[in-house]
C-alpha cells in the first residue's frame, strides 16, 4: 500500500471531530484542499442517483462562506455537537491518496435541553497527502436521518 499510515488517517478524523465539537469553525475549511468538494446529502438522494445535496460546497472558499453564514447571518438556536466517528475503512490507497469511509454519529445538545441523536451516516472521503499533512479532497456526508430535526446549521 505505501503512503500515509493508518494512525495518521485516524488522527485526521479525530482532529476533524475535535475542531467541530469545540466550535472552532475557522479550522473547518483548513481540513480541505483549495479545490475540494463537500456534500451533505440524504441517503435517499445518494442511493437513487439524485444529484441534489442539502449542502454542496465546491471550494474552500465556499466552506469559508458557510463559516461566515454560521457566524454572522444564520439565526439559530445555539447547540453543542458531539461527533463520534468510527474507525475508517480504507478502500484504496496510493502514496498520495486514500479512498476511505467512516461511520459517524452526531449527538446534539441544545441549551437547557436533553441530548438527542441529530445526524448519523457515513463519510465517503478522498484524502490526499499535502505539505500541510493529510487533507480532504472530497467529503461526502451521506446521512441516514433523511428527516432532519428542523435545521442543520453547523458543519458535520
Amino acid at each position: 500500500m505505501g503512503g500515509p499510515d493508518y494512525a495518521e488517517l485516524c488522527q485526521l478524523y479525530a482532529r476533524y471531530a475535535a475542531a467541530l465539537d469545540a466550535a472552532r469553525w475557522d479550522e473547518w475549511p483548513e481540513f480541505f484542499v483549495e479545490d475540494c468538494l463537500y456534500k451533505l446529502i440524504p441517503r435517499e438522494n445518494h442511493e437513487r442517483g439524485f444529484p441534489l445535496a442539502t449542502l454542496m460546497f465546491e471550494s474552500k472558499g465556499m466552506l469559508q462562506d458557510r463559516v461566515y453564514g454560521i457566524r454572522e447571518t444564520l439565526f439559530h438556536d445555539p447547540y453543542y455537537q458531539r461527533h463520534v466517528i468510527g474507525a475508517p475503512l480504507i478502500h484504496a490507497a496510493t502514496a498520495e491518496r486514500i479512498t476511505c469511509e467512516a461511520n459517524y454519529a452526531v449527538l446534539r445538545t441544545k441549551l437547557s435541553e436533553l441530548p438527542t441523536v441529530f445526524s448519523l451516516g457515513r463519510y465517503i472521503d478522498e484524502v490526499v497527502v499535502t505539505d500541510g499533512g493529510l487533507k480532504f479532497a472530497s467529503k461526502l456526508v451521506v446521512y441516514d436521518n433523511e428527516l432532519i430535526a428542523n435545521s442543520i446549521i453547523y458543519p458535520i
Partner: protein
Amino acid sequence: MDGAEAVFPDEMTWPAGDVGRVPFLAYTNPEFHKAELERFFYRDHWCYVGLEAEIPEPGDFIRTAVGERSVIVVRDDEGAINVVENVCAHRGVQFCRERHGNRLDQGFTCPYHQWKYTLQGDLRGVPFLRGLKRDGQVQGGMPPDFKTSDHGLNKLKVATRGGVIFASFDPDVESLEDFLGPEMLGYFDRLFDGRMLKILGYNRQRIPGNWKLMQENIKDPYHPGLLHTWFVTFGLWRADNKSELKMDAHHRHAAMISTRGQAAAAAPAEVTQVSSFKASMQLNDARFLDIVPEPWWKGPTAVMMTLFPSVILQQQVNSVSTRHIQPRGHGAFDFVWTHFGFEDDDEAMTQRRLRQANLFGPAGFVSADDGEVIELSQMGFEQKPFHRTVAELGGRDAADSDHMITETLIRGMYGYWRKVMGL
C-alpha cells in the same frame, strides 16, 4: 400586564372582523387542528401530492401524504395517475411501507392477509374468498353477497396540471383551475409551462411548529430582509425591490413577486434596517449567486406562491422547488422539498440550480433560520395560549399590494381561515 385572565382559555375570543391579531390558541388547540384537517386538507381543497416526473413509467409509485393521511400516487398501465389511500380495505393496515418503487407486475398487496389491489385501487383478489374445499365440504369463505367491487381502496380525486399532481378526498371539490383562481393560475403556469420536469432530489425536515406558520412565513415579506441577513448582505433582497403581493379571490392562496434590483449598489441603512448589515462583504466563491436569467421568468426574479393549505411553489432566481406541508399534530409538520429542473436545462444550468439550492432547504443560508423561528414561535404560543399576535404592518385589512412593507397576505389567510372554521 398579561396573565390576569385565564392562561388556558376554554374558548377563543377574537373580535369579529379582526384578521391581524391571531389568537395563539389557533396554533395550540388540538381540536382546532382536527377541524383544520377536516375542512382544509380533506374537504373542499386540492392538496399537492407530487410531480409527474417522480412516477414517469407505468407502475411507478410514491408514498406521500394528504394532511395526515398516507396516500399512494401511482401511474397505471395505461399511463393514468391514481391516488389511493394507504389503508387496506380489509382490516385497515397501512400496507405500503416503501416510499417509492414500481408495481406494474404485482399491483399492491397487503402483507397481513394478502388482499391484492390493482394500480387503480380495485380489489382483485382475496385469499379463501370462496372458502376451502375439504372432504366435499366448503369451509369458511366470504359471505355469498361479498363483492370484491365493494372493497377497493379509497380512491381520491386527481387533477394534474403542468406536471404537478393534486389530489382531494372530496369527490365534490371544484376544478383545480377554479380552486386556484385566474391570478394564481397565471403564476402557476409560468413555472409549470408544460416542459418536462427533471427531478434533482429531496430534502426533508420536521419542523416543531404549527403548519400554518409555514404558510405565513411565505406570506410574510416583512421578515426576509430582517431575518435572512445573508440575502441582504449579498444583495439578493432589498425591501425596495420592485414587488407585488397578490391573492386569489378567497385570500387563501398568494404570490409574492419580486424583481431583484442592482445587487452591486449598497443599500442605504433605512432600506436594510439590519444591525448586522455589512455593505463591504463579498463571497469568497461567487458561484453561490451565479444567476442566469431564464426566458420563462418574464421579468420577476422571484415568485413565491403559497397554495393553501398544502404547498409552496418556489422560484428564487434559478432555484425551483415544491415544498410540501404535511402536518403532524398541531405542533409539528414535515416539510418535504422537491427540487427540480427542466428537460431543456444544459449541464451548466443543472449545476447552477444545484448550487443555488445551498440557499434553501433545512440547512440553507436563507431557509434554515425560517425553521428555527417557527420552532420558537410555537414555543411562545404554547406558554401563553390566551395571547395573540399583532400582524398589522401595512394596516388591518387585506388587499393586494405593490410593496413588501406589509403583512397583508397573512391577514388575508386568517380572514379565510375564520370563515371556513366558523370562528
